[in-house]
């Protein structure tokens, strides 16, 4: 008579506990299986849905659009890219204007966000304690709870003639100064809400949290003893900041700037609501794929921010932004 050896896993507990325990120990022993189970769904999503659609987009940017029949045919052509990159092309002037306008704004917004965010992040990481820390986190993130559209619209009211800014300027007797600033070329306009300055203010406001949080996280990781060591070795506070604090916080600034830069580069709502006429890349893409129906041209234009961000990352890498990671 064969006697079955008692399974040590089944000696205690209920059968269901046994199954769960066996599953747990199976996954514990086969770490690769666990990893596979955890990573397959997101990788499928990322690979198929995200990268797939990006590739489809890239593909379509080589399709041919017939100006007369408004029809898209899958005949591969470089015409769309020539319209952006070839100075001999009749459309080049208008297109490069769009790219430069967007790029200039994205760069300005990024620099402004970094300058404003650094002191806030520095205070949050170095000085805020207890309830202050919670207050700062909520204060930085609270604007993100409100709808983006609502914020953009409310800014049009804030910046319009007769709005809060003008009212405040009048109360403080600063409207003459405001008018003088608005009369400057490039930044100015007939009112704040139709000027590049106004658009810049709205962008800076909306993307600021995306700059504060990465810088704060980077500063938080700098051990206090490094700053003390620098001071101990004779560095004045400004030197410590320049030679220790800033280089170690720089990856955070770069991470934040990737957000502010790419978010501005791709935005098409703020340029529509605030600021002077003149298309941004996003508006142009929107118009091409919507009103005009020139999907290939729209697709070609979306490649521009991808290339710009790639160049930016390569530059940041060369500058050693990721060395301290």
């Amino acid at each position: 008579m064969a006697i079955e050896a008692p399974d040590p896993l089944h000696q205690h507990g209920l059968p269901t506990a046994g199954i769960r325990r066996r599953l747990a120990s199976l996954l514990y022993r086969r770490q690769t299986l666990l990893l596979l189970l955890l990573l397959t769904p997101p990788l499928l999503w990322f690979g198929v849905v995200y990268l797939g659609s990006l590739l489809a987009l890239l593909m379509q940017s080589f399709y041919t659009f017939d100006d007369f029949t408004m029809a898209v045919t899958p005949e591969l052509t470089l015409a769309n890219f020539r319209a952006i990159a070839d100075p001999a092309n009749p459309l080049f002037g208008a297109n490069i204007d769009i790219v430069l306008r967007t790029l200039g704004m994205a760069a300005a917004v990024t620099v402004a966000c970094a300058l404003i965010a650094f002191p806030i992040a520095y205070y949050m990481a170095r000085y805020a304690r207890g309830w202050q820390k919670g207050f700062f986190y909520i204060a930085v993130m609270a604007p993100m709870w409100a709808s983006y559209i609502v914020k953009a619209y409310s800014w049009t009211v804030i910046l319009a003639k007769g709005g809060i800014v003008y009212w405040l300027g009048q109360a403080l007797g600063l409207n003459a100064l405001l008018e003088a600033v608005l009369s400057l070329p490039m930044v100015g306009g007939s009112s704040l809400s139709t000027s590049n300055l106004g658009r810049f203010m709205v962008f800076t406001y909306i993307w600021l949290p995306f700059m504060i949080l990465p810088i704060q996280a980077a500063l938080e990781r700098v051990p206090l003893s490094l700053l003390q060591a620098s001071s101990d070795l004779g560095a004045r506070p400004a030197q410590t900041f320049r030679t220790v604090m800033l280089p170690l916080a720089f990856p955070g600034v770069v991470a934040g700037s990737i957000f502010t830069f790419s978010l501005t580069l791709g935005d098409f709502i703020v340029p529509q609501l605030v600021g002077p006429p003149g298309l941004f890349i996003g508006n142009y893409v929107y118009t091409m794929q919507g009103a005009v129906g020139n999907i290939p041209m729209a697709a070609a234009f979306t490649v521009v921010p991808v290339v710009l961000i790639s160049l930016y990352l390569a530059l940041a890498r060369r500058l050693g932004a990721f060395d301290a990671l």
Partner: protein
Amino acid sequence: MNHAVEFQQVSRVFDTVHAVDRVDLTVAEGEFFSMLGPSGSGKTTCLRLIAGFEQASAGCIRIHGRDAAGVPPYERDVNTVFQDYALFPHMSVLDNVAYGLMVRGVARAVRHRQAEHMLAMVKLADFGGRRPAALSGGQRQRVALARALINQPRVLLLDEPLGALDLKLREAMQTELKALQRQLGITFVYVTHDQGEALSMSDRVAVFKQGRIEQLSSPRELYNRPRTAFVADFVGGANVIDASLAQSLIGRAQAFSVRPEQMDFVSEGDGGIQLTGTLVDVQYHGAVSRYQVALADGRQLAVSRPNLLDATQVAPEPGQAVTVGWPAHAMVMLEA
């Protein structure tokens, strides 16, 4: 003559905690001075007061005769070797060592040559091009030392610098540190919780307890003549016999200490001072064994005996009744 460091009634209060409480001390020029104590005893706060990372709440600190009140760390002629080394991760080893010269505006070629020289002194001549992350713990420790010494400070502060190293390396570094201090002739102020480290390297040791100095003497005196029960226990691991037990033993109500190696198992009538109890535990340490003896009233004594290759040596077993004895001269009278 000016003292290298002088504390007069120095206190440092955090909220309501007296981390340092009315401390008086002087460190002589060229001395190897250690601050010894358990964690939270105020020794590291004292070091940070000298470095300038903390300001005294009360009292006066002088460094080479100059009042240090309000003087920031970067204007003090002292340098620190940090417990976690605090090497700059984004700089090469060479730039780390040269940092003190760099912030003083010394030209690149000059400061790098100096840094090479310092690295050679700590036996890391070929490591200048590496990043700190590519070094072992012992190597990082040497880099931290070279970096702190490049400014030629008159006082070097060391905050448990050997704490993270393994035993063998720690012992080697103790010898090297002591040799370096003799060679350079500068004042070392050394913070540690390891009594062996403090005893083996220092000219004088200050034992800290709850923000106050319990005893300040030479290592020999500290070990042989502890003044308080705390010092006797913390430095020598000595047995402290309190006043009431002393009364019944020697007819005098004064606490005293006896070191474990001065005690031995004896038979009744052997003379000397004796106590009987039960052996509860034996710890084998190689060279010696430590025997834990419980007295009838629950008090415990530690007896340390060398483990000789001697067949006649009979070790008692746990559970056995034993008589512990020591000679009268082994007793060190303690302050109340």
